[in-house]
């Protein structure tokens, strides 16, 4: 199913259904309740002043009613369950309001204006905290954690039926270093979203990774630099080679690596391919058997992709590991914003299309 059809048929209706008119109406009326509550607190304060003729007591009563009003106002917001304010917000309102009210009362009693001024600040803050809770936003949106789950589930089901979420399988930095695909030292690996999938009889895993080098300068300051950021695909062995074959980005001759690396570079017949990649192996014949001229041409085409180009491949004895360079992350979007969702899901689809094309090529499907 093309992406635009998918969005119009499945995602857009979810957002339309998410707007509940009754809740929206309630949310619009809600701020007026707070105004009435503040007025009520003022009236009670004035009545107390009239009956007791003590401004401290009157103020104390006003502050107490105000704090209670704030508490009940926040509690009666039409929040969806997931957005219910935390206990910290209630505690904050009560503590700030009570402390502020108490200090202002003390200031009025002692006649010290410093107390009065300092007390007014937390009291006002408690009012601000109460007011900035935006019931409109809550009413406009359906619980979007649920919406996010619905959309990602539909996205995979409709567009990529073979894919599912998995727990990231963290390979240590040493593994990535030994594969010789990535230049330089790798000290840390950051793992992102992880997907598993099946195409025909081939099971594969797709993982967002960020390989990081940590270095220290002469003053002992630590700096971190990204060696590689992209996707890591693991597939069963492709081809029937009996020696490891490594395809890595073309580098200039490095004397140090020449002595360290177990494999040697071989020159291939395709000049475009040669400019892009170095082929490293312990057995030249096996590498040429695997990388036929036509396969090289296709791999070169994969490396020319703008969004998610092929970075390197490790053709191992048991598995094939493919590295694709990309900074974009799949399903990384603000699900509260329908326009943003459309744009970011389109990007996710483009990334997955390229990745699936490579998976299909190396699974013999």
């Amino acid at each position, binding site marked *: 199913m093309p992406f635009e059809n998918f969005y119009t048929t499945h995602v857009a209706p979810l957002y339309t259904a998410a707007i509940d008119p009754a809740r929206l109406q309630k949310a619009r009326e809600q701020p007026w309740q707070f105004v009435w509550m503040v007025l009520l607190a003022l009236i009670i304060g004035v009545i107390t002043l009239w009956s007791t003729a003590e401004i401290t007591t009157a103020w104390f009563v006003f502050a107490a009613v105000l704090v209670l009003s704030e508490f009940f106002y926040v509690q009666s917001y039409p929040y969806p369950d997931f957005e219910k304010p935390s206990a910290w917000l209630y505690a904050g309102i009560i503590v700030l309001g009570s402390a502020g009210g108490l200090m202002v009362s003390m200031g009025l009693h002692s006649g010290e204006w410093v107390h009065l001024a300092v007390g007014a600040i937390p009291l006002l803050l408690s009012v601000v905290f109460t007011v900035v809770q935006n019931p409109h936003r809550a009413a406009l949106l359906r619980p979007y954690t649920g919406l996010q789950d619905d959309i990602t589930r539909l996205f995979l089901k409709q567009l990529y039926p073979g894919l599912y979420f998995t727990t990231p399988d963290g390979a240590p930095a040493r593994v990535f270093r030994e594969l010789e695909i990535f230049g330089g030292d790798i000290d840390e690996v950051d793992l992102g979203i992880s997907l598993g999938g099946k195409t025909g009889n081939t099971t594969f895993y797709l993982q967002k990774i960020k390989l990081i080098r940590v270095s220290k300068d002469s003053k002992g300051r630590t700096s971190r630099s990204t060696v590689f950021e992209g996707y890591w695909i693991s597939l069963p062995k*492709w081809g029937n080679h009996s020696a490891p074959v490594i395809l890595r980005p073309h580098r200039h001759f490095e004397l140090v690596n020449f002595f360290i690396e177990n494999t040697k570079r*071989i*020159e291939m*017949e395709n000049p475009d391919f040669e400019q892009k990649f170095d082929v490293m192996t312990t057995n*030249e*014949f096996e590498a*040429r*058997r695997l990388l*036929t001229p*036509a*396969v090289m041409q*296709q791999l070169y085409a994969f490396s020319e992709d703008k969004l998610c180009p092929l970075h390197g491949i490790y053709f191992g004895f048991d598995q094939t590991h493919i590295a694709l360079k990309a900074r974009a992350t799949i399903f990384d979007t603000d699900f509260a914003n329908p326009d943003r969702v459309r744009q970011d899901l389109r990007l996710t689809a483009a990334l997955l299309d390229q990745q699936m094309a490579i998976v299909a*090529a*190396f699974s*013999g499907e």
Partner: protein
Amino acid sequence: MYLFIAAGGIAALLIIIYNDLVRKSNQVKETFSLIDVYLKQRFDLLPNLVEIVKQHMGHERAVMENLTALRTRAAAPSLNPEAKIELYNELQQAARQLFVSVENYPVLQSSALFQQLQNTWSGTEENIAAARRTYNAAVTRFNTFQQQFPVNIINAILGFQPATLLETPEAERTNPNAKNLFQ
């Protein structure tokens, strides 16, 4: 003193160049022997192929005669490398025609023995193609090294001859079907 150092340097250079020439020349021979191994594998399949084809396509005279003649030539005890390659190219041509003709013989096409033979045939085909490319790469390295300065001057004395590249048969120059690339 300086004369001795210069003479020593020249002698060392000569030794290095000579050893490198020998090493590269041996690589060429070694990679050609790889082709030889796979060509033998291919020729060994021929009697079985002739036998099974005879059972089902005995009346296809041209195909049969061609295959039988190739089998007889392949069985000759002393074939030089060039003759082997020529024979291989002819065999390729004949095999292509045969596999096309087989489409008219569904019984033969579905025979397990024939399918197994066909798979082994294409397996050796891939091996021969890779071995040929490995050989050509070794030849290119060897020939380029000989033509570089100062190896070209030294080689004029040592007398290493350039090796010959193997040409790709016409049939293999055609564009492959992209769908089958990764099968």
